[in-house]
């Protein structure tokens, strides 16, 4: 097989990354990456032991890119993460507890067993819950930003993530075009992980470089090295900063490799060895640790301590959630309509009949 052209075009950037790459940011980002990695390993165990139903979708190998968006967002921003964004979600305020509750279908989780796994969010707090239909969240984030603009609120940004496969959808195209037309402060991060489930890039898109699409949409395009935390922090930091200061939509494209299957049910046998051995296949968590140890932003002892603390927290939370009540069908209101009075709800649900 051959790689899509975008994946071998190497790294080049618009400007030199500077904003967002601080010792404090990088340390926070690394710790969140570690949290995501440890938590996701536990999710895989719970899946293999039959505790989690449906599927488990991991972000292994994409944590650096994901977290780099999350750490640059703040309260009041809008964030619509996608399937491989556990690290970014944690940075935006999601928790180990709610992740476990949603995967295990706990009635105490934000989705109350009504939806699961990566379909998790608190939309009223700006944390959107993705639908499976790729590209749909781009325009949804645009809508939130339109609302803020109409109310005269400034300074907030919206952000969403997608894979290279998702960029083939009409929904992505419409959303990006709309973002450009409305000049909204949105950052869209494309993780080009070379395979959309099993489909390689040459069967996914024909353009030489996904970044070239930015020009077509009339938005700023930036490239990041997807498995290099420091690079991602810098590039995405600049993108978020530009959007926040009114420079319009930002498209960030990052090449990397998914180091797991599409989900835990998938052995990823279609990913060739040479790719795994290439720079794309280097684990972003290892790379980040090596680099940060080198420049003195981390110590081995700290990493060991963090790992222990996180493992303990994940285990404690998992034990807690496994003891929590499952949703009770007899207590479910089975009502898809919003906050109307009980009589109206009854009417809506049954069409007036008891």
């Amino acid at each position, binding site marked *: 097989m051959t790689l899509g052209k975008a994946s071998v075009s190497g790294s080049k950037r618009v400007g030199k990354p500077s904003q967002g790459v601080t010792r404090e940011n990088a340390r926070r980002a690394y710790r969140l990456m570690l949290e995501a990695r440890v938590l996701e390993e536990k999710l895989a165990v719970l899946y293999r032991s039959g505790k989690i139903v449906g599927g488990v979708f991991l972000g292994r190998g994409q944590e650096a890119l994901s977290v780099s968006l999350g750490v640059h967002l703040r309260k009041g921003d809008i964030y619509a993460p996608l399937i491989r964004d556990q690290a970014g979600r944690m940075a935006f305020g999601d928790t180990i507890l709610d992740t476990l509750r949603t995967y295990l279908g706990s009635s105490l989780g934000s989705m109350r067993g009504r939806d699961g796994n990566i379909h998790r969010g608190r939309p009223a707090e700006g944390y959107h819950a993705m639908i499976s*239909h790729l590209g*749909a969240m781009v325009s949804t984030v645009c809508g939130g930003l339109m609302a*803020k603009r109409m109310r005269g609120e400034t300074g907030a940004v919206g952000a969403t993530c997608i894979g290279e496969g998702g960029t083939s959808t009409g929904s992505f195209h*419409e959303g990006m075009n709309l973002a450009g037309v409305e000049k909204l402060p949105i950052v869209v991060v494309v993780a080009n992980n070379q395979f959309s489930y099993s489909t390689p890039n040459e069967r996914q898109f024909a353009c030489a470089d996904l970044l070239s699409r930015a020009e077509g949409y009339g938005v700023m395009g930036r490239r990041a090295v997807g498995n290099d935390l420091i690079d991602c922090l810098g590039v995405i930091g600049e993108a978020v900063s530009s959007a926040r200061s009114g420079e319009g939509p930002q498209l960030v494209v990052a090449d990397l490799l998914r180091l797991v299957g599409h989900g835990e049910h998938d052995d990823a046998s279609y990913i060739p060895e040479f790719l795994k051995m290439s720079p794309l296949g280097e684990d972003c968590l290892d790379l980040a640790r090596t680099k940060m140890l080198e420049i003195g932003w981390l110590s081995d002892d700290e990493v060991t301590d963090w790992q222990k603390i996180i493992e303990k927290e994940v285990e404690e939370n998992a034990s807690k959630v496994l003891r929590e009540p499952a949703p009770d069908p007899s207590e479910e209101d089975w009502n898809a309509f919003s*906050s*109307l009075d009980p009589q109206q709800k009854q009417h809506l649900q049954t069409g007036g009949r008891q």
Partner: protein
Amino acid sequence: MSNITYLEAIRLAQQRVLHEDPRVFIYGQDIGVFGGAFKATKNLAKEFPGRVLDAPISEDAMVGLAIGAAVEGMRPIIEMQFADFSTCGFNQIVNQAATLHYRTGTSCPLVIRLPSGGTPGGGPFHSQSMEAIYAHYPGLIVMTPATVEDAYTMLLEAVAIDDPVIFCEHKFLYYHLKADRLPETVLPFGKARIARQGRDVTVVAYSAMVHEALAAAEELTHDGYDIEVVDLRTVRPIDTDTILASVARTGRLLVVGEAWPWGGVAAEVISRVATEGFGLLDAPPQRLNAKETPVPYHPALWGTHRPTASSVANSLRQLLEL
């Protein structure tokens, strides 16, 4: 005021909600300075700067935008240029807007206006009736106003409701129907209306078919029959109580819909009456829908494709003989 058309009622309702509620904005193709393909937003962009906005030809993104804005507390109205084009935004409507409250507990208050139904020369892609498709999905309220008064008050209500509302306004009624004044009081959504009282047959209809049913009922007075016409007003929720009460009076049921019969609103009404009011029926319940082809272009074909007063009257005569 006098001679207010169905279309003008829709424009006036939008003007009122824009005036009264700062959360409201309208987004759709050609609705800004141009005032919309049908002029349902005429002069509104000028009166409410920045709140009546031209959208790119991107139905998916238009609805996605409305969902995001609704989550942020706004009350967006999306104008689809024709109901037919809402299929291009179908995914956002049924998978995101309709599921949001159930999944997340966050409301999704938005209105999608669908200029619906056939007109002479409309053809396959500018004539469709989409109400059954959307009513199928839990979480969507589907309104089908048949009168100028309902077009006005139900649109006001649609904006006030915390759920996504599919507002099926009929293009054939835009200019044909007129009212002297607009009502201040309103029959709540989800309640059907007895449009004409009778004792021999219940005709359940909605949207433009209410008027065909009323004309047929008038025709049958010459045969000595007294036909009751129920206007559903909202197809979801559907007012089964009013339908059953009417069938209890008449013992016979004909349901008329401009949409195709397969899995449609007429089928739903008959299913409910058969399961919940079988003993009320003196004859098998009947339905009259469009013919099962795409909506044809030529007026002669179109006029036969859809139910008309004449075909409704024929169906009624047959039902009365059963």
